């Protein structure tokens, strides 16, 4: 046979490079994974042989991911930077994928034209487009592509037994495993096992002359004949898979993944969660769904039988949680660790050769003849047009998915952040980003500063992270309450991690930052708000790391590139030299098994038609359901749900369109009303669940009870609203609500406050702050402190006063001991403390001792969780003593104190009253601290209430605080000898400044309550200002 270059393959390559090569610049950086690989690459670029990375998760090892792709990007980055490296590797991936599909298709079909068709289709295959442009899984793409290159070599080794083929196949397996570890393992099962089956079939056919004559006995005989080759290949590839990334396996063994599984969309029930079904089923399968009957028909023919089985398993596993089968097949653990989308990817890749064959037969083969004979040429053209249209539609849709449904926040300019971290030794502390999406990896790659967070969840080490099903703290709000619960533990005890700075791109987190004692530093020019925490020590210059032996480091640094080099020599260079020398070309053995494309099965054509009609019906029905569910005016429920959704996403125009048009509420007025409402619920809440209950419904009027669950950064809010819905001209609308009519007394008023400014370093220098520029720590006094047992958990409650002359930031750290002075637990005050105190101001406080939530068993994770709840630490022994460390630091921020509290009524279960804002700032979230006293006016407990609505200037806001019920409470220890202020004994420092303190000074100002346990309460107010003037 004359060996000419395949024009289809050339076309596929040219189009592929042009298409993917231009589009990656717009897509790759916003994918889920690409920037993570970039970060790893940055690590190798900085220290090729040192696997320990300090930048994420208080340190982790990069030996937790196969290194080839990262090292390639790193090597290329030395030429043109990290992004150059990433794009180049992506392009190499595209080329490898297209050629890989070509070779795989050629192996399967023994027809160069068909293989060429498959290669062209591969370029636009929606699963490939999705994997590259939406997921950014570069190592996975390179892995599977190289595996496909290996398949023909494996076939030839098994068929011919030539040692050179064994060498080439093993060399390619080695490249596969160094780029992606999962691919060769599952590739063995799903690609190589069926391939072995096919080889045995072919060999049997060779031995007896016809495929039809192959019986099980013949098959078994041939299997035993080829057994040596199969087993030698199997054993050697096992050695390769283990040996090439041995450090990876050692690391996996030493640090087994004991984490709570992270939910992944590919495990959802696709019928229930349609968005997952779209992303993990419909898009990757795309048009292949239509030709499924053909693909299965062909793969279940005798020669491909094993591929048929493999494809079936892949197809089923790819359906995730839709059917119980994947869970049964894989087992609970594997099901929860693996992301099942890869099975669909592999299934679609496995289908590509036969899809190419189908298209070939449709365009210029027997199928064309059959259709034209049966239905006429026009039908053939129309069918072709429809198929091509659908195919391109799926490609374009997959490509632009992130345009319609952005998976990442807008691209953030990192330079101001990088500059900030480089200035003033800010990189001596750890930082965290909030609301950056996967761009945090790009920031990490650009700075030397370290983050508490990270973006490679398998490498998480802190138990605070591994016990939660969250990928990263950064996007914890999307992980609902578990996420926020985890985040707030980091925010409350940041000293533990030397964690001082937060870059926030999402104001959702602002309230929790404030109430955990953080303060705003400034807004960078890219709009990112920097928050800082005072009293956090810098990182020590020597940080702990888990070292590995030198041979592992060397192996890890050298082997991946070595495998590429060997594979290059064996697969490209040697054959090239040989062909130049001999000019003769041997036809590969698999080309001898040509298919007969003369007689397209009528049954299959019929089946495909029926199948297409069924598919069309399903899609139409799905679209109809979608419409019914989403057409906002269709029913009262739809109107309500659409309205709340619109409010949740701040689509006020849409929300207004759902308001009764006859209610005389113009959009301007509506927007104005929205703009003046602020507060926890209207500005910081995310709708978690909504259910509606129709109380009554007539043709044109309906009353509904709407139950809503909102997740806010501070707590979970349950709300019940009554809504009236009217039907006008066949459409349902919502009646608007009343607005606050209160008029404040003053049009313009003045208010004087004392402002503070700390110069910091007075001289502009990079040296350490000069001692005279270091302010004295403000002196605090712990007025009272006691260890109490409330229900079944322990807390330290008390009061602290700033007795200095400057405002102070307060950090309270409590530690519990048992009778033998054994350390039991330590924690900081979180919400139950005014973190900023004016001179002489007092705050009640409570320190909860939080355990690492749900650390015991996975199944104890509550289905619904309140961010305000916490898991009390489990004590092995009884805490009896405590140590309390108060630290003051001068701070001039968040000193707004102009809110007053008035109690209007108290009954058995509630304290009702109003809050009045007399200042010039709008209070976004008011918090009430309620201190409970016993009959001797001794403080025994501190509770809090976040008022859901904000308070505008000179306006009232009512509150209703539910009194505690009859909880058991016991004071365990009120010995204050171990209370310290700024490291000095509390008593001494207090005596020096307030030697003749008036004890129980305002005891007579406590509010009497009628309660079986508590006799008095005191209210204090702490306010969060969302937008300081």
């Amino acid at each position, binding site marked *: 046979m004359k060996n000419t270059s395949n024009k289809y393959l050339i076309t596929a390559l040219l189009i592929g490079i042009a298409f993917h090569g231009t589009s990656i610049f717009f897509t790759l950086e916003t994918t889920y994974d690409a920037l993570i690989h970039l970060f790893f690459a940055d690590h190798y670029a900085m220290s090729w042989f040192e696997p320990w990375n300090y930048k994420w998760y208080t340190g982790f090892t990069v030996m937790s991911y196969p290194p080839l792709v990262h090292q390639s990007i790193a090597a290329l980055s030395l030429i043109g930077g990290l992004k150059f490296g990433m794009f180049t590797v992506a392009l190499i991936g595209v080329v490898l994928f297209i050629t890989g599909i070509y070779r795989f298709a050629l192996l399967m079909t023994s027809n160069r034209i068909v293989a060429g068709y498959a290669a062209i289709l591969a370029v636009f295959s929606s699963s490939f487009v999705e994997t590259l442009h939406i997921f950014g899984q570069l190592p996975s793409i390179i892995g599977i592509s190289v595996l496909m290159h290996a398949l023909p070599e494996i076939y030839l080794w098994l068929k011919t037994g030539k040692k050179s083929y064994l060498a080439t196949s093993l060399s390619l397996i080695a490249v596969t495993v160094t780029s992606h570890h999962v691919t060769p393992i599952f590739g063995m099962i799903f690609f190589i096992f069926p391939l072995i089956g096919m080889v045995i079939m072919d060999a049997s056919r060779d031995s007896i002359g016809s495929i039809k004559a192959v019986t099980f006995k013949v098959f078994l005989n041939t299997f035993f004949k080829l057994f040596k080759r199969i087993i030698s290949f199997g054993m050697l590839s096992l050695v390769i898979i283990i040996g090439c990334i041995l450090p990876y396996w050692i690391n996996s063994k030493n640090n087994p993944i004991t984490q709570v599984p992270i939910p992944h969309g590919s495990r959802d029930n696709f019928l229930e969660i349609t968005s997952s079904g779209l992303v993990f089923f419909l898009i990757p399968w795309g048009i292949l769904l239509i030709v499924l009957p053909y693909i299965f028909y062909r793969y279940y023919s005798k020669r491909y039988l094993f591929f048929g089985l493999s494809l079936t398993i892949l197809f089923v596993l790819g359906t995730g949680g839709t059917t119980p089968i994947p869970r049964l097949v894989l087992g609970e653990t594997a099901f929860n660790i693996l992301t099942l989308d890869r099975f669909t990817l592999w299934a679609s890749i496995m289908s590509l050769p036969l899809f190419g064959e189908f298209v070939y037969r449709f365009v210029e083969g027997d199928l064309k003849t059959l259709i034209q004979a049966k239905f006429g040429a026009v039908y053939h053209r129309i069918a072709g047009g429809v198929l091509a249209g659908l195919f391109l539609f799926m490609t374009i849709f997959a490509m632009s998915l992130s345009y319609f449904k952005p998976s990442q926040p807008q691209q953030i300019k990192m330079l101001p952040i990088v500059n900030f971290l480089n200035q003033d030794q800010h990189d001596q502390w750890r930082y965290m980003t909030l609301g950056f999406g996967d761009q945090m990896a790009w920031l990490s790659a650009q700075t030397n500063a370290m983050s508490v967070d990270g973006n490679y969840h398998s490498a998480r080490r802190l138990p605070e992270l591994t016990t939660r099903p969250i990928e990263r703290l950064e996007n914890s709000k999307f992980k609902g309450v578990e996420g926020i619960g985890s985040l707030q533990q980091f925010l409350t005890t940041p000293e533990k991690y030397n964690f001082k700075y937060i870059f926030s791109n999402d104001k959702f987190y602002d309230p929790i930052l404030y109430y955990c004692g953080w303060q705003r530093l400034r807004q960078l020019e890219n709009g990112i708000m920097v928050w800082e925490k005072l009293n956090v020590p810098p990182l020590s210059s020597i940080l702990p790391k888990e070292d590995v032996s030198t041979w592992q480091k060397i192996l890890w640094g050298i082997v991946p590139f070595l495998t590429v080099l060997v594979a290059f020599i064996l697969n490209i260079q040697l054959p090239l030299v040989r062909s130049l020398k001999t000019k003769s070309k041997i036809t590969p053995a698999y080309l001898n098994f040509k298919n007969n494309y003369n007689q397209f099965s009528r049954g299959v054509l019929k089946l495909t038609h029926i199948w297409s009609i069924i598919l069309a019906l399903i899609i139409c029905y799905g679209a109809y359901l979608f419409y019914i569910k989403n057409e906002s005016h269709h029913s009262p429920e739809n109107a309500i749900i659409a309205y709340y959704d619109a409010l949740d996403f701040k689509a006020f125009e849409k929300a207004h369109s759902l308001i009764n048009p006859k209610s005389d509420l113009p959009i301007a007025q509506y927007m104005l009303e929205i703009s003046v409402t602020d507060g926890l619920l209207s500005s910081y809440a995310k709708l978690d669940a909504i259910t509606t209950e129709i109380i009554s419904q007539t043709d044109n009027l309906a009353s509904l009870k709407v139950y809503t669950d909102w997740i806010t950064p501070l707590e979970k809010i349950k709300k019940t609203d009554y809504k009236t819905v009217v039907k006008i001209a066949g459409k349902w609308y919502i009646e608007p609500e009343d607005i606050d009519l209160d008029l404040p007394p003053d049009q313009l008023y003045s208010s004087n406050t004392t402002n503070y400014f700390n110069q910091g370093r007075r001289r502009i220098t990079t040296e350490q702050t000069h001692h005279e520029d270091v302010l004295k720590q403000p002196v605090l006094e712990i007025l009272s402190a006691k260890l109490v047992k409330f229900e079944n958990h322990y807390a330290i409650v008390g009061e602290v006063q700033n007795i200095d002359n400057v405002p102070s930031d307060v950090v309270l750290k409590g530690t519990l001991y048992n009778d033998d002075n054994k350390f039991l637990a330590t924690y900081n005050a979180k919400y139950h403390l005014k973190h900023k105190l004016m001179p002489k101001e007092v705050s009640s406080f409570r320190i909860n001792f939080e355990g690492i939530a749900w650390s015991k068993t996975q199944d104890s994770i509550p289905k619904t969780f309140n961010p305000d709840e916490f898991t009390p630490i489990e004590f092995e022994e009884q805490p009896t003593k405590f140590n309390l460390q108060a630290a003051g630091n001068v701070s001039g921020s968040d000193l707004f104190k102009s809110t007053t509290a008035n109690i209007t009524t108290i009954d058995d279960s509630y304290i009702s009253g*109003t809050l009045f804002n007399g200042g010039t700032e709008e209070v976004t979230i008011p918090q009430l601290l309620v201190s409970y006293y016993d009959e001797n006016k001794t403080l025994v407990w501190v509770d809090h209430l976040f008022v859901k609505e904000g308070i505008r200037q000179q306006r009232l806001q009512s509150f209703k605080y539910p009194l505690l019920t009859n909880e058991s409470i016991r004071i365990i220890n009120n010995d204050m000898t171990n209370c310290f202020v700024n490291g000095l004994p509390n008593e001494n420092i207090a005596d*020096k400044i307030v030697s003749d303190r008036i004890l129980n000074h305002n005891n007579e100002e406590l509010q009497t309550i009628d309660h079986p346990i508590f006799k008095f309460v005191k209210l204090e107010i702490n306010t969060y200002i969302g937008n300081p003037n």
Partner: protein
Amino acid sequence: MKLKYLYIAILSIFLLSTTVALQTNEVADTYKLLSKKSSYTAGDAIKLQFSFTGNTDVHLYCSNSYGSVVLNPDINSSKFHFSIPQSISKKSGILNWQLISDKTELKGQVTIKSKTSIETIESYLGPPSIEVGGTDFTMLVVIPTDDLDNPLIDSTKVDIKHQFLFNQEASDVYTKHGFSYKNIYSKTKSGRILISSESLGLNSKEYDVNVVPAIPTNFKISAERIHDYADGNQITTFKTNIIKDRYENIVSDGTFVTFFITNKDGYKSKTSGSTINGIATAKLLQPDHEDQWSVKAYVEGMANSNTIVLDYKQAVEDFEVTFSKDKRTITIGPLKSFMNQRVPDGLRVQLTISKNGIIEDQSIENSLNGIAKFHLNPDRFPKGIYKLEFTAAGITKTYTKVAYE
């Protein structure tokens, strides 16, 4: 086999004989310090010279406050010497040395004195703020140093000067252990103390210490209001007089004062202000019904005010309740204030609806143009007999049997 033992035997004999030979070859090494000088000035070249017999494989281990170093000798026939490096020899203090050889241990000390001329004054001051009253103090530490950064010899005179208000003081202190210090005590006035020091004609830079007021003493409060009607709209402002400490200093700006207000029902309200020039101001919305407030302010644990009593007169004397035909729309008002003017928008009217003695709902409407309207949704409140209670401006009107169809 026998041959093997033979080899071992021969080998052992050979080894033994060589060890014996080595032992017999040994001669006693002796070293002696030749340099007599034991005191140097910092910066001088220091050479330690030794005479020796025997082995020349010796090192000198030197250690001083700066660090330690091991030196190799310069050998010259029967003598060798060690040159102490600059980094060591320029530090004043005691330099310990030790000759390291196989056997002999020879050690000694060299005293390095600092230079006599001053180059810089190193000074430290802290804390940067102290309280009035004469017990709190700040400490200035002064270290006169030579050009090699060594502290000058002890008993160098340092003149520490400080200025406060109209006084300027100077006192002589002498260095001891390399430094001198002075505690500067606060007086009874707040302000800023400027401090400097001088030694051997060289002056330091200026330091300052803030003297902050002590804790406040009892004070008085007053209230200001537009009128004394309980209209629920105007604001009453509370003020302290100038709060001072026991030395008559005005307390620091920002001192937090809490005002507690008790109304005639015994319910507490709380407002607060921080001082500016000693005066704290706090605001509170006037009540919407007749009331008496007693107000007392505190700086907790330190000082408090007198109690003042404020009376608020009823502004809204009465209001009308009008039911619509189906009784489901209820109009309250017009609500009239003390001059029969309509109350400012936003007077709160509360409706409590109960059925069979159980509270079904409580809702609050604000007045608009003196009128508040309630609408009872038939879905929420189906057919039945309800008790309606309207409360506005402290006046409650009850309708016990309102029947809804």
